[in-house]
């Protein structure tokens, strides 16, 4: 009786960033259940893992999607590579299936030819989820500006949708 709604497959996507991580929880293709940025200070990796543990316990995702830092062309820092490895281990220990996508694989989901800017991808997602992400779209980054912290949300949502498409 408990297996009557097989479509409620829950996907948790994590996009680590300099201040913590962005996350998105997707249920069915058009339902964004939760999204946001978790900011941490001090021992960033340990605190990020503690926050991720809370999210996993709260939402009980079936699949966790992350960006693969070991693929060729990845420009992740050493700290984020370590954090990703620890996140994968944490997901596996909670019996969550983990899927990794390279940056190029995510781009190919949205752009023909796989070429497009991060801001263009964020705009696509803001149009797809106008109520949820529309007002969170940061202004286009100028060369002298550092990246807006909200971009981590869009990275996570892009990963979640890529993960969902690969499952379908």
């Amino acid at each position, binding site marked *: 009786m408990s297996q009557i709604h097989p479509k409620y497959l829950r996907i948790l996507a994590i996009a680590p960033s300099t201040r913590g991580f962005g996350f998105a929880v997707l*249920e069915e293709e058009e339902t964004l259940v939760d999204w946001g940025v978790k900011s941490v200070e001090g021992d960033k990796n340990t605190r990020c893992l503690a926050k991720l543990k809370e999210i996993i316990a*709260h939402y009980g995702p079936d699949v966790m999607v992350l960006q693969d830092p070991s693929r060729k062309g990845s420009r992740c820092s050493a700290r984020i590579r370590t954090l990703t490895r620890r996140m994968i281990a944490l997901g596996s220990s909670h019996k969550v299936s983990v899927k990794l996508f390279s940056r190029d694989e995510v781009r190919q989901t949205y752009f023909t030819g796989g070429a497009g800017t991060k801001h263009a991808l964020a705009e696509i997602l803001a149009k797809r989820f106008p109520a949820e992400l529309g007002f969170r779209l940061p202004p286009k980054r100028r060369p002298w500006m550092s990246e807006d912290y909200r971009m981590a949300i869009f990275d996570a949502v892009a990963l979640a949708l890529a993960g969902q498409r690969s499952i379908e």
Partner: protein
Amino acid sequence: MPSTQLPNYLRSNRKCLGLSQDEVAFLLGAQSGAKVSRYERFVREPSLATALAYEAIFQKPASELFGGLYQKMEQKVVARAKALTYRTDYQKPTRENTQKLQALTDIAASQSKKALNLS
């Protein structure tokens, strides 16, 4: 590994409207956002009055806002309807009993129809 729905979808609906927990608490007539936080973390189930207030705030039916809770209650009701059908089957086949059986069969079938629509 299929999942069931979450007990409620209050957080996503609140975020969509750009409201803070304190603001929702004010709309609900609660003292602080702590209560809203408890509802959103599935620590506490809201009363019927609060559920209806949420329906008014988010303009969505309570069965949608509290999807998992509704699903759980629906399953229980269907199981009870099946038990009652079984009991009614042994009673005299009067006009009243036939009508009752039809209503109980409809309740039991409603969940199967939803499952078919989803899969």
